[in-house]
């Protein structure tokens, strides 16, 4: 086990919660505009008390309307991707599975680009058109893949993966075609596909929240079912799990959370793939624990990546999707190399 010695004695949940808190504080404290930590604190205390000192008004705007909603959005997105990734890996019993495996990302991308090619009125619903269309297309894709992969009353895992890959390629090709045909939308679509929230402020947080509460809520309680599924469908059923129903519920919950996250935060790769693996190497494969830890770990990981995206080439910002892969891959390889117990999967 590669976890540093003193940390091993703490409960993984205490440790994860502590790091999440640390990342959140960092995310609120760090930005392209320097605000003294004391002032950040005074702003937050002032906001809670209902009166902000007038000399801090500008900083209050930055902290309360920019950094705080962004922090919450990134944490929610990371939580969705982390827990969905763990669920997909368990569901498909495949270490390469990530939340985008069966087409959520490519479907969302297609939906987003279609919506971007239409002139929407500048209104609340006009602005919601892109995330809404992305979300809808993502869910439609998963549903189509599911129907295509179904054989009689069962949905073989291999079929699901193959149908997902084929459908993804199709949707991605269609997206590229639409982007080539369009003029001004390429920049917008590219920015979205590389990850990073398109709309600042609390609207996105409110948009993502209901789906995440349902989706991630179900996932967190699916640990026992996923544990059983690791022994194969037959043994799981012989041990008392209604396999088809459980798999469908987990699939829908994971897809729902991922689709909502993608719709509002763009396609952020790598989080859903590596976070569950790292946690599995540190704290074992029990999905009851792994799902909750992946939720916390995904949020922490994405927050840290987002902070990096703000400071690496400040005052410019990198799309966070680039940071998750650039920073995430070497970190993952380092953990992999140090893992003594190679049979963690």
């Amino acid at each position, binding site marked *: 086990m590669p976890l540093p010695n003193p940390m091993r004695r703490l409960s993984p949940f205490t440790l994860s919660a502590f790091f999440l808190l640390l990342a959140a504080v960092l995310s609120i404290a760090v930005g392209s505009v320097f605000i003294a930590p004391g002032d950040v604190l005074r702003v937050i205390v002032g906001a809670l008390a209902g009166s902000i000192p007038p000399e801090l008004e500008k900083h209050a705007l930055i902290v309360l309307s920019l950094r705080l909603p962004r922090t919450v959005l990134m944490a929610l997105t990371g939580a969705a991707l982390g827990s969905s990734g763990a669920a997909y890996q368990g569901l498909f019993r495949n270490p390469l599975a990530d939340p985008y495996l069966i087409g959520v990302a490519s479907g969302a991308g297609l939906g987003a680009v279609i919506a971007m090619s239409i002139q929407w009125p500048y209104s609340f619903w006009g602005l919601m058109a892109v995330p809404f269309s992305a979300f809808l297309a993502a869910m439609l894709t998963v549903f189509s893949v599911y129907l295509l992969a179904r054989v009689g009353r069962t949905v073989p895992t291999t079929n699901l993966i193959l149908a997902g890959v084929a459908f993804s390629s199709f949707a991605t090709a269609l997206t590229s075609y639409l982007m080539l045909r369009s003029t001004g939308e390429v920049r917008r679509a590219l920015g979205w596909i590389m990850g990073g929230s398109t709309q600042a402020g609390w609207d996105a947080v409110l948009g993502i929240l209901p789906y995440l509460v349902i989706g991630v809520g179900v996932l967190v*309680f699916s640990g026992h079912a996923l544990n059983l599924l*690791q022994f194969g469908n037959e043994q799981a*059923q*012989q*041990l*008392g799990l209604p396999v088809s129903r459980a798999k469908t519920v987990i699939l829908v919950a994971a897809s729902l959370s991922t689709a909502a996250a993608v719709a509002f935060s763009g396609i952020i790769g790598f989080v859903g793939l590596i976070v569950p693996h790292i946690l599995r190497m540190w704290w074992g494969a*029990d999905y009851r624990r792994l799902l909750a830890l992946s939720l916390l770990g995904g949020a922490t990981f994405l927050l840290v990546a987002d902070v990096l995206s703000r400071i690496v080439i400040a005052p410019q910002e990198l799309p966070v999707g680039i940071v998750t892969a650039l920073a995430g891959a070497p970190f993952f390889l380092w953990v992999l190399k140090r893992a003594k117990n190679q*049979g963690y999967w």
Partner: protein
Amino acid sequence: MLLIESLTVSYGTRRILDNVSLTIENGEVLALIGPNGAGKSTLVRAVSGVVLAHPGGVVRKNGVNLLSVSPMERARLLSVVPQISSLPPAFTVRETVMLGRTPYLNFLGQVSAQDEAMVQRALERVDALDLAERPVGELSGGEQQRVLLARALAQNTPIMLLDEPTAHLDLQYQVGLLELVRTLAHDDGLAILIALHDLNLAARYTDRVALLVSGQVKAVGTPQQVLIPELIGEAYHLPVSVIPHPFDGSPLVLPRAPRAFPKS
């Protein structure tokens, strides 16, 4: 008592089980024997509800049709010790055995002190307490088989099905496992169906034997009644002699003319 009535299973157009009916009393071990491809594993899977049987087939326990109840209810009545497939290597032995408690847990999978105690006892019975905290991926085939038996024990069911549990075991573990299976039936009153390919083990450790050939039950009875040269020779396409076992007089089947490949 477990009643299997007119169970028929097809894969596509191929009929694997043809109108199989069997009765297993409480406190009895029934061995299922027959050549490869006769349908032994399919029968275990069909009775446990993971392979769909034709309508009309019934598996009954105290008037409950096990094929029409939920997996959860079925798992409280019937446990299965499967053939060793690849077990998820990262799970510890204790975690694996605890999954046997699934039919008694709430939807959160919360474990009570009673569940812990049942798991502990199951580990004890298969002599696997010292393995409890090890990942199953590190265990030998024989140890894994014991873990799977412990998991079925933790399920605490009146019926247990075992599918070729001795296939990968050394001689001493084969004997140990079958002794335990017999104790479970005779002392704990379980109704046990065990698929075995070793005729002589079936003869020594089980109460009755059912001979399955091409999906049909050819004979059911005590080992002395079923393990006779006529029946076995025809089923396996091989002339055999049967002599009494020097220790306890149970039938001992010996092939007469060894042949590289049996005609099917």
